């Protein structure tokens, strides 16, 4: 028998096959464990987070360059304020009568009349007690 004859003879022999139930067994494992759409969640979330960071950066830069005003400085507040009302004039007089440094008090724009009055009452009480 020649090599070619042997090759032809071997090629012509019937070949075994895997059992049919193996196919079902293997394909039963081929269902994806996670839904397909969840695979895009990570990239989408990362992109959204990046956009939010960029937006926050832009807001900070814009506010620092004067685009978004901070609360006005005391000098600006004084300059912007209109003529003093009678209540405010009374407040200033009281401050002067108490001997408090009026300039200093005026440099604190957060000092509200209520705060001032409370402070004044306390000082008056202390003066009476002393």
């Amino acid at each position, binding site marked *: *028998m020649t*090599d070619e004859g*042997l*090759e032809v*003879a*071997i*090629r*012509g*022999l*019937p*070949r*075994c*096959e*895997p*059992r049919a139930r*193996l*196919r079902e*067994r*293997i*394909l039963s*494992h*081929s*269902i*994806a464990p996670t839904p397909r759409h969840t*695979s895009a969640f990570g990239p989408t979330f990362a992109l959204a987070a990046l956009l939010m960071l960029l937006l926050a950066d832009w807001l900070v830069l814009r506010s620092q360059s004067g685009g978004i005003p901070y609360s006005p400085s005391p000098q600006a507040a004084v300059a912007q304020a209109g003529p003093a009302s009678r209540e405010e004039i009374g407040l200033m007089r009281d401050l002067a009568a108490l001997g408090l440094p009026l300039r200093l008090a005026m440099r604190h724009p957060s000092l509200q009349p209520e705060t001032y009055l409370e402070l004044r009452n306390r000082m008056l009480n202390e003066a009476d007690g002393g």
Partner: protein
Amino acid sequence: MESDEPSAIGALPLPFPLKGRRVSTHETADIAVIYEAYASSIYRYLITLLGNPDEAEDALQEIFLGVMRRPRRERLRDLRAYLFRAAHNQAIVTLRRCKRHEEMPTNVCWIALEACKSDDCELAIDVDRALRALPTEQREVIALKLGEELTFREIAQVLDIPKNTAASRYRLALARLRAVLESGES
């Protein structure tokens, strides 16, 4: 005997229904087509190496599960070569396990003796006997070449050996087969 034309694995990496489109090894339909196209070939190669139908089926299942577990982003350049290579590696793992547990595999080959016609039966039995007498490294080359029609280039790729080594193993195996068959005839 062997032409230097481009490898059939590279030229036709996918079975016809999947050709020309991206294949997902996570889709049941694609896995079914891949199974229909390659499972029999891989099974016969496994049975040639392992000599045991049950072990070959278990190994085949492991190979397909491995394909399905691959990360989605990893793309297979050459599916058939990958499957044969995986079969080679899985067979080594199985043989090691059998050796460790001192299990002697049933020594059968890829020829379906029960399906032989009466006039082919004698030849089939002789060839089967001769194939089983071959060393594994020669038997697997015969199985890949004559059983699955791989080229020497593809066989070298699967077995991770030089092409010339694959060719020389084939020639040696063929000569030994012929000698065994002729001695049986005489």
